[in-house]
């Protein structure tokens, strides 16, 4: 690129500045030159005029004298002398048509012609002798003017050129190069952007000139821009980081279709689907088919309100159900509306809520049980007190009357009531102990345990002439020995106690497996229990026949112990035919080791 081209293409501003400067300068120069030339012309012409006036004043009298004297040669000399004056071109002295003398020659066209009458005063009278014609040429004047014009123009041209050059330089130094620098700098604003703009100039005064101000503004703009870029980038990065590392699943979903446009790492972890699998799915497919209505309802709410918080069920790839809390809103991403959903697995929370509700319910049940327990106790404890108090008063009367017979009866009633009360309190204590964990569970051989219980009830069994038969192999159980023996004893006692009149009690004890559940049973041939009382008998202090001994606590205790071991206790019975008390045993307490052959037996029993 030649300098001119560079100048033209890269500095159009400088070029135009120079062109206009030169044009203006030339115009000014021209006008000033013309003015100057005109003044010079006037000056030169006035010099010629003064010469002419000098001729008239100085030379004319001598010429008139010479003419009077008709001295032609002298006249010729005189005229030639005048011709020596500057710019005189031609001079002629005539008297009428007679030319007395003539000097110079008439060539030039630009002349000043002057005709001066030559007069002579003779004897007081002035006589016109002739006419002197003087012609001064302007050629000298013109030559002079031309010279001057050339000088002025050339000098002015040189000056203008130099000034222009200087201006160009100054303009370049002060403006153009900075502008170019700014331009280049601005051109580099893409991407991370250049370092702050610094100009290669010294700043004259504080605050600088317009260029400094511009650079300053640009730098400020740049900083702002950079800040904005950094902020935007940071935001983007922050969002990306949040998106990737969030503890919640995040889905970006297409409204309408429900297509998953993006999902974070957590979503893959929680659902078991890979990122790519998720991208091919819709949100509906995230849940089981039966949960679709909730998903649709949520979508509707989202469409109406722009955001929605709801709970729904998600299904993992492996089929496990997740209880999810979803917080969705419609957001605008580069002009496109999408749904952003934060999904949190609240399965545990849900479970603990349910657990809490269950516990609460259980607690309420326990409270009601407690209430009725206290009610029952207060009633049943009051009863013997009423008896004692009543018979004590009667006893006083018996003593007054000295009625020994009656007195003994009263004392007997008091004694029985006190005894009953003692039994009641002991049973209550026993019952309250079943609410606490007593011994550590241990491996218990039921055959051995049953032997112990039988030994304890021996007198009762003997008195009622009862037969106890073990009809099948019994399992080994991992249970609280003492309490389990309590269960067996209570069941055995009941079986012996509620026998039919005139029929020796026969009790059969066995084990079987029904519907996959291990069960023990105690079967008797006693009086049996009507269907409607079969559940009532397990209630505290519930006795169907108050004529028989007992406090109505035994079965309550037995059931509680069985339930504490994870089993159930219930009765099947027909009045007049006998009862069978069933005990379900959870597999967890059945000992299944090499010694526990019975356990295997009981398992294979069908």
């Amino acid at each position, binding site marked *: 690129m030649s300098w001119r081209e560079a100048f033209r293409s890269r500095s159009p501003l400088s070029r135009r500045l120079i062109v206009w400067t030169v044009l203006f300068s030339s115009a000014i120069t021209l006008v000033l030159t013309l003015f100057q030339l005109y003044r010079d012309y006037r000056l030169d012409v006035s010099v010629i005029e003064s010469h002419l006036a000098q001729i008239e004043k100085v030379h004319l009298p001598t010429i008139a004298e010479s003419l009077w004297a008709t001295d032609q040669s002298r006249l010729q000399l005189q005229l030639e002398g005048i011709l020596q004056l500057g710019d005189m071109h031609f001079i002629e002295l005539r008297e009428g048509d007679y030319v007395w003398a003539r000097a110079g020659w008439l060539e030039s066209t630009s002349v000043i012609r002057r005709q001066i009458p030559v007069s002579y005063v003779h004897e007081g009278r002035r006589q016109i002798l002739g006419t002197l014609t003087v012609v001064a040429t302007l050629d000298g004047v013109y030559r002079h003017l031309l010279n001057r014009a050339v000088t002025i123009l050339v000098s002015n041209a040189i000056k203008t050129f130099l000034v222009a050059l200087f201006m160009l330089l100054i303009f370049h130094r002060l403006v153009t190069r900075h502008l170019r620098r700014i331009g280049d700098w601005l051109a580099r604003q893409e991407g991370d952007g250049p370092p702050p703009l610094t100009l290669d100039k010294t700043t004259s005064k504080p605050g600088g000139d317009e260029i400094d101000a511009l650079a300053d503004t640009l730098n400020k703009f740049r900083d702002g821009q950079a800040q904005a870029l950094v902020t935007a980038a940071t935001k983007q990065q922050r969002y990306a980081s949040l998106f990737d590392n969030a503890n919640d699943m995040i889905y970006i979903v297409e409204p309408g279709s429900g297509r998953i446009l993006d999902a974070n790492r957590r979503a893959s972890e929680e659902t078991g689907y890979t990122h790519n699998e998720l991208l091919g799915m819709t949100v509906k497919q995230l849940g089981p088919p039966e949960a679709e209505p909730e998903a649709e309802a949520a979508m509707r709410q989202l469409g109406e309100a722009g955001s929605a918080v709801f709970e729904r069920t998600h299904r993992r790839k492996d089929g496990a159900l997740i209880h999810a809390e979803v917080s969705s809103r419609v957001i605008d991403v580069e002009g496109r509306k999408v749904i952003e959903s934060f999904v949190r697995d609240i399965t545990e929370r849900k479970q603990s809520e349910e657990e809490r509700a269950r516990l609460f319910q259980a607690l309420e049940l326990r409270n009601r049980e407690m209430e009725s327990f206290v009610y029952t106790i207060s*009633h049943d404890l009051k009863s013997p007190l*009423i008896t004692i108090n009543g018979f004590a008063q009667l006893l006083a009367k018996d003593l007054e009357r000295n009625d020994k017979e009656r007195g003994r009866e009263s004392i007997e009633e008091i004694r029985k*009531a006190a005894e009953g009360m003692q039994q009641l309190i002991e049973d209550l204590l026993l019952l309250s102990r079943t609410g606490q964990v007593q011994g550590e569970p241990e491996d218990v051989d039921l055959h051995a345990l049953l032997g112990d219980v039988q030994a304890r009830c021996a007198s009762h069994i003997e008195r009622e002439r009862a037969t106890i038969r073990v009809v099948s192999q019994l399992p080994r159980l991992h249970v609280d020995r003492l309490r389990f023996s309590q269960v067996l004893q209570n069941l055995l006692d009941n079986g012996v106690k509620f026998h039919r009149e005139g029929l020796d009690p026969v009790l059969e004890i066995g084990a079987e497996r029904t519907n996959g559940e291990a069960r023990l049973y105690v079967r008797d041939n006693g009086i049996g229990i009507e269907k409607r009382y079969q559940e009532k008998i397990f209630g505290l202090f519930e*006795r169907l026949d*108050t004529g028989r001994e007992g406090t109505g606590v035994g079965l309550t205790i037995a059931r509680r112990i069985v339930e504490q071991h994870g089993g159930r206790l219930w009765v099947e019975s027909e009045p007049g035919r006998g009862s069978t008390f069933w005990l379900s045993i959870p597999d967890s307490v059945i000992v299944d080791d090499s010694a526990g052959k019975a356990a295997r037996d009981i398992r294979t029993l069908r």
Partner: protein
Amino acid sequence: MDKPTNKSTLPIRILLVEDNDAHTKLILRAMQEDRLANPVDCVRDGEEALDYLFRRGAFEDPSASPRPDMILLDLKLPKIDGLEVLKTIKEDEKLRDIPVVVLTSSTDARDVSMAYRHYVNSYISKPVDFDKFRQVVQELDYYWTIFNTKPDHKTHRVK
């Protein structure tokens, strides 16, 4: 069937529904002490009481179950509890006229209100104080013999 000459002089017949034998004895003794010669039939649980009143089971024979003039009913009873018995009596066309006095050691306000909801005629807590207890029985007897005309039930009477 002879016509009673003076209804009011006849001691009223009481059906005592009480599972506690000692209490039954106590009530009977109390009546003896005060020379109350009321005939008393005793049953020991709710089922027996209803069997008696409806003449079922062991009480099929009308002579074994004369219609009582008053029922003394314990609330806490085996098999069928007192409130259930009360409800059944008051829902029965023939039995609802028989005054029922709930006699129990319970002083629970809920029992009281439940008993009244089932149209109990009177409610008396078993007093631990024997004299008061006797007084209650006595007053009951007076109440029905002196101020009330007994419903005609001579056909149920055992001669």
